[in-house]
């Protein structure tokens, strides 16, 4: 029993009887679970607010990347767009089409690279595979397709702009994947 004026709250954590002491850690565990639950609710709120009111900036306008002849067939070139730090890659496919994707794997943001001749983009970290024509996930842990940019070719110069699915014409040369 407390005889002095000090805070004797700690005594609840070190009870005299063994039976009571078995409940201390479970009580704390339950409170901790409640704290975690509050944290998760706050996290969901953050996601909801971020997604609805602060969407990521869209890329405005067209951005010059390089000249067509600077990139050999099957080659890749990494670039960044002015005013952003996101790394992108431009790929010249074997059928002479150009594709541009974000270079960050959608799994844990490792840098992805194009495997020349295979039509696939590979992530070395956990062997994620993406379709180089569409950015779709073919294998491995990545949960989402690679974010894509639209490539515009003007004569000899290659530009990229924000991706809109409707200007993605189906490609007649594309072999079906099997």
């Amino acid at each position, binding site marked *: 029993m407390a005889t002095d004026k000090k805070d004797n709250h700690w005594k609840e954590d070190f009870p005299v009887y063994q039976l009571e002491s078995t409940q201390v850690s479970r009580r704390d565990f339950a409170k901790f679970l409640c704290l975690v*639950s509050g944290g*998760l609710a706050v996290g969901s709120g953050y996601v909801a607010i971020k997604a609805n009111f602060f969407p990521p900036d869209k890329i405005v306008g067209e951005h010059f990347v390089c000249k067509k002849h600077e990139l050999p067939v099957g080659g890749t070139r990494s670039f960044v767009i002015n005013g952003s730090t996101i790394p992108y890659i431009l790929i010249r496919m074997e059928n002479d089409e150009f594709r541009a994707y974000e270079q960050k794997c959608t799994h844990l943001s490792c840098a992805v690279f194009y495997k020349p001749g295979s039509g696939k983009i590979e992530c070395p970290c956990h062997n994620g595979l993406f379709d180089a024509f569409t950015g779709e996930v073919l294998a491995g842990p990545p949960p989402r397709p690679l974010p894509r940019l639209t490539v515009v070719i003007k004569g000899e110069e290659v530009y990229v702009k924000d991706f809109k699915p409707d200007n993605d014409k189906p490609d007649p040369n594309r072999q079906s994947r099997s």
Partner: protein
Amino acid sequence: MSNFREAQNQAHPNKTNTLMLALIMILILNVSIQVWLLYTALNNALEKNTDIAFPSFIASSILFLIGFGWLYFLPSGPRVTK
């Protein structure tokens, strides 16, 4: 006058043990559902399906409030008379 808290504190240890177990099980269940909600909301938001984010936030908050109110039934152990 005796209240809920006192009555519970005098309960048999078997009873408080069961209660504690039930409490923790429900809390773990709530937390797992919340993890799933957050995971789904985040993945969909990154895929630009933002519609699911708010409903999942509301569901998650409700689960938290349930868990928080649920703590009232947590056996407090014998009260030290100050």
